[in-house]
């Protein structure tokens, strides 16, 4: 455990130092948040009251609905992409073999990266929410314990997807179908930008099998209507099952890919 914390610290400090060394990129990536919020603020003006009827029960208006959708899904995109991106960067810098020769379990390294990501993505989530409240006047009524639990489970299953993506990068280098599929399907069917009710009925059934559907629905209920863990126990149990299944699957697939990469001699190549 102590060693794991040291690795986590090493990665957090290193990422911070490297990010800091690319000052402009770091600042502009944070500015993206403001532009994204403004974009949807004006779209919500265009949609007006007609949007409100669609999001009834999830949020007070379309802008509040979409803001929490974007903020919560930012945790998913981070979990999905960080492990593959980390492995890809280590392949390109030539440090992957050195790190793997350090006798630390590769999955421990991956989980340390995931923690690093969670901290960063929770910060991004907060930034979205704070900007939404202060600058655009969205009204919140938060149940903090349920929100924290939802965000943690969301981070957990997205890390599972990230592990699967990392496995693909170990073998195929630039090709990560997991990230591509999850990003597109979740964006379209997960209820990030518009309520699922807008979709044709047959697509509702597909949405029911996506963990993001439950993450976003529960996040909105806990942030707008202060619903507690007990109020949302069904959604939270489904999220827990998704988290366990996807994390375990990701862990198994990552270890299998690593073994395959070591058999084929692919670790050093990029």
């Amino acid at each position: 455990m102590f060693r794991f914390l040291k690795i986590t610290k090493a990665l957090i400090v290193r990422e911070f130092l490297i990010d800091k060394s690319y000052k402009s990129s770091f600042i502009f990536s944070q500015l993206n948040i403001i532009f994204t919020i403004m974009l949807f603020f004006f779209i919500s003006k265009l949609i007006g009251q007609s949007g409100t009827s669609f999001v009834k029960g999830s949020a007070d208006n379309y802008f509040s609905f979409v803001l929490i959708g974007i903020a919560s899904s930012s945790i998913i995109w981070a979990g999905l992409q960080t492990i593959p991106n980390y492995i890809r960067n280590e392949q390109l810098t030539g440090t992957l073999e050195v790190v793997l020769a350090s006798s630390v379990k590769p999955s421990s390294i991956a989980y340390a990266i995931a923690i690093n990501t969670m901290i960063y993505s929770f910060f991004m989530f907060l930034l979205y929410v704070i900007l939404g409240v202060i600058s655009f006047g969205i009204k919140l009524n938060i149940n903090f314990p349920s929100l924290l639990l939802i965000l943690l489970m969301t981070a957990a299953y997205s890390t599972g997807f990230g592990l699967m993506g990392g496995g693909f990068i170990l073998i195929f280098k630039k090709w990560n179908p997991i990230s591509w599929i999850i990003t597109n399907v979740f964006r379209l069917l997960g209820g990030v930008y518009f309520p699922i009710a807008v979709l044709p009925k047959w697509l509702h059934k597909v949405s029911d099998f996506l963990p993001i559907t439950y993450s976003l629905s529960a996040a909105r209920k806990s942030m707008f209507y202060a619903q507690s863990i007990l109020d949302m126990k069904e959604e939270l149990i489904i999220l827990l099952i998704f988290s366990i299944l996807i994390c375990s699957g990701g862990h198994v697939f990552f270890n299998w890919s690593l073994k395959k990469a070591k058999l084929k001699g692919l670790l050093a190549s990029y």
Partner: protein
Amino acid sequence: MKHAIKIIDLTKIFRSNGRSVRALSNINLSIENGQIVGLVGANGAGKTTLLKIIAGLLIPDSGSVKINKNIYLAPRIGWLPADSRCLHWRLTGLQNLVFFGRFYGMSEKNITERANYLMSKFGLENSRDALTGLYSSGMRQKLNIIRSILHEPQILLFDEPFISMDEDGIELTNELIQNYSGKNNRLVFVATAREKQIGNIVDRVTYMGKGRIVNNV
């Protein structure tokens, strides 16, 4: 003395696009504790493949590497690849060492002490706070060597450690290898295509060619 590492019938074949290359064929080696082993052979002889299998970075098609558990209670490996890119170029020399030191589980105090001592020994004390991307290739190789011995591993695997080094650097590295092994009974492998570079520091030389051991001296 009982062996420290025993390599038994090691074979490795790389397959790609329907072609296969036999990188190692039935390698058998038994190495005692405290030895410095030179692996000498031309490019493609199988030296790197052998070292990577010992480091656990490659899985052989058949055969095994057995590390004596009585001697190495916690076998820690120091790996120096032939690729000198294996540092974070956006970090300074010291920041690189601190990162890897934490990764190796060292205490902060130990990292700083070892890093400062080794950087001074290799003449890098004035470049500690310079970005590694600004180092010359010889300086980067020195930093890589420091990185690989920072945590005082029991087994050192050096793949072409003299790349880009000047004569002083080669001499310094050889001296370091000798002291590192001799005082502490540690095991060091040094793979090189140029036998001259390892001088007379090695206890034994294993000559490799086309994935086989051609001679053991």
